[in-house]
């Protein structure tokens, strides 16, 4: 993969990473005995395909890379995806159980939060009361000691 902020003199050719990846995958899959011959056949095949369908894997890879590094391309995509989701929500029936589940989950969470608050306050009150009791008993002890003297 070419990195735009690397030394520009030694840039990897556009789309090369994609070709390399494809070649490696096919070699690992086929396990040929003569790798150079296999690679030559592989690229000849790709060239033929390109002439027939005008699909260039290198160009395609270059485009992918470009989109990866120029983030605004993704922003557009996200927006359309969101729109699609909203459309699906408003129209699709399949979505409803999911959203219902989400809502119930949210309610549950609210309940839990409330319960947690209650438990925490109760426990704090308990601790405070314990302390007060201790203080009282300490005072009582001291008084007793004083009486003994």
């Amino acid at each position, binding site marked *: 993969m070419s990195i735009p902020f690397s030394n520009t*003199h*030694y*840039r*990897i*050719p*556009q*789309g*090369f990473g994609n*070709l*390399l990846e494809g*070649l*490696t995958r096919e*070699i*690992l*899959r086929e*396990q040929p005995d*003569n*790798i*150079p*011959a296999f*690679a*030559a056949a*592989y*690229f*000849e095949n*790709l*060239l033929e395909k*390109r002439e027939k369908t005008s699909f*260039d*894997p*290198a160009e395609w890879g270059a485009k992918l890379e470009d989109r990866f590094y120029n983030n605004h391309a993704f922003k557009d995509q996200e927006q359309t995806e969101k729109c699609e989701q909203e459309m699906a929500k408003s129209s699709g029936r399949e979505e409803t159980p999911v959203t219902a589940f989400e809502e119930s989950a949210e309610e549950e969470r609210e309940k839990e939060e409330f319960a947690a608050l209650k438990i925490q306050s109760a426990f704090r009150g308990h601790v405070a009361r314990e302390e007060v009791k201790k203080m009282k008993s300490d005072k009582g002890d001291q008084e007793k000691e004083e009486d003994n003297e």
Partner: protein
Amino acid sequence: MPLPDTMFCAQQIHIPPELPDILKQFTKAAIRTQPVDVLQWSAGYFSALSRGDPLPVKDRIEMPVATQKTDTGLTQGLLKVLHKQCSHKQFVELKDLEKKWKNLCLPVEKFRAILELDPCDDKMEWIKFLALGCSSLGGTLNTAMKNVCEILTADPEGGPARIPFDTFSLIYQYLASLDPEISASETETYLATLREKSESRKNGMIGLSDFYTGKTSG
């Protein structure tokens, strides 16, 4: 080794021991050569590799020097690559040469244009094609000869770029004969002076400094 039918983890994939090196050399060659059409070039690279031919790889990276006026995609580095691939034979078959030309992502029109300078059937002396290629790099006959010297020399890059005088005079005569503005007698006298120089000092070799004095010389 055939792969097992069921894959459970990446360790089951058998990586051929020679594969990493092949991929590494391939990548280095690509970075160095900077082909315009990676796919076409890769096909050429591996077909040369599988046949044991010299690879279509530049010795070192070449900065793009083309201007709009002379941009044909052909550079000295690319001619040198072709020279490496073809020079082991005296004659090259034009079909084979055209294939190598295409694999370097050069336009076929340019190839045809070069051949029109000296039409021949299906075989051509490599040295002649090289000379025509150098002259089509642009500039005068002298700059063409400079390119020829830099490609043919055995000296290290940036050195005096010496070549045998016989080769030099052969190419010079050939190129001069194609140029109607240069008369045969002119060529003879020019080569005679150069011959004296080279024979007296450099045991039959001629270098850049003997005939090429920068851009001003014509």
